């Protein structure tokens, strides 16, 4: 069955849909966590510490966190690999373009591939910046995420990279969520409007929620 899934274009789309949904669920949890920054350094840092102790005493320190990280890495790799392979197939299937060109499909639909590449690069930067601290602008302090976030968004490029990526994320989710529903066969004529509305609301809330943090730092609400 795994073979059938991976060998078929429809199956590979299923892999994309499921891995996309896993990442989307994670993002909902992530944005809720981020917003705690507006309640002060104490609450935000405490929340960050709690993420490492989830499931104790059943789970050892950081086990749950690593479990989530592994699932996410698998999801990202599966999503990107199937996207790459499907895109290659799509480009091969339509080698010559029409002489008479027309603007096609919505902006969100047309930017799925470039948006995906931007998001992939963003994830790398984001981890190196705020998880490992490798490319962090200030002095990165392990266990003090509040200060680290403030440092990142005190640089112009930190804000630009982050906000551009979050706008790409919104567009990606707008087309991606609805498309995943079609791929998984849960879309229908009667449900179409509802699915599109949910996709728009998710895209808007996630983008607004994530962008609120750099805007908060820029305006001095978070410092």
């Amino acid at each position: 069955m795994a073979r059938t899934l991976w060998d078929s274009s429809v199956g590979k789309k299923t892999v994309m849909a499921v891995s996309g949904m896993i990442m989307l669920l994670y993002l909902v949890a992530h944005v809720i966590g981020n917003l705690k920054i507006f309640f002060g350094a104490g609450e935000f840092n405490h929340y960050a510490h709690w993420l490492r102790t989830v499931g104790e005493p059943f789970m050892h320190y950081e086990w749950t966190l690593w479990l989530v990280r592994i699932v996410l890495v698998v999801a990202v790799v599966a999503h990107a690999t199937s996207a790459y392979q499907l895109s290659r197939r799509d480009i091969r299937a339509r080698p010559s373009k029409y002489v008479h060109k027309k603007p096609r499909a919505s902006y969100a639909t047309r930017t799925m591939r470039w948006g995906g590449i931007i998001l992939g690069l963003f994830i790398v930067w984001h981890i190196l910046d705020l998880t490992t601290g490798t490319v962090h602008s200030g002095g990165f302090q392990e266990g003090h995420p509040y200060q680290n976030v403030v440092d990142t968004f005190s640089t112009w490029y930190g804000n630009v990279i982050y906000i551009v990526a979050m706008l790409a994320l919104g567009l990606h989710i707008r087309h991606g969520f609805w498309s995943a529903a079609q791929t998984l066969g849960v879309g229908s004529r009667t449900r179409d409007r509802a699915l599109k509305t949910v996709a728009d609301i998710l895209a808007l809330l996630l983008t607004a929620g994530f962008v609120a943090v750099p805007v908060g730092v820029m305006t001095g609400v978070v410092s």
Partner: protein
Amino acid sequence: MKLTLRVWRQKNAGAEGAMSTYEVDDISPDMSFLEMLDVLNEQLILSGEEPVAFDHDCREGICGACSLVINGDAHGPERTTTCQLHMRSFRDGDTIDIEPWRASAFPVIKDLVVDRSAFDRIIQAGGYITAPTGAAPEAHATPVPKADADFAFEHAECIGCGACVAACPNGAAMLFTSAKVNHLNVLPQGAPERETRVLDMVTQMDAEGFGGCTLTGECATACPKGIPLVSITSMNKEWLRATRKAGKR
């Protein structure tokens, strides 16, 4: 009407093609698009040039033979087949671009004619039912719920012209394949091959080199028969169901 036509000319499958410009005059707005091309061809024959090759057959919008991308739209600006498109949809003095279907699974044979036999092979892979032939069966022998009959009929309207492939930025045949799968899979007559049909037809579709679906919706917009985009969703559902069942066996 006086028109300037820019038409894709290509000697054969191996030759390089290019757009050629022609002028046509005295075109009646009541002519169909194909009749306008007939006028062009008469003109070309009289001047000793090779006429433009294009596919056509019934000229009443039911056979699926005609296939032109007109000003970037499969079958032109109206939601119908090229043969049912009339020159009143254009204005005097217009320049019209005429190109063949573009997809690597539909190679150009000559000028505007493409090889659509990939569709035939998708049908051969499962677009049929196994039934004893002979006299027509008694109409009430196999009852079909009204909703299912309507669903089947909506998809049976597909004439296999390939406009969906031509319009799709990925050259995908998902709308065509889904129309055929849904048409037969919902009916009791199609039930014995319900799983193998969708699996085999999708496998053949992939093997022919068609692209995948990115849900741009271009196919359903171009379809002269109004096969809806949600048809693809229904086929995905059938495919996942068949894959699960095949996995259990």
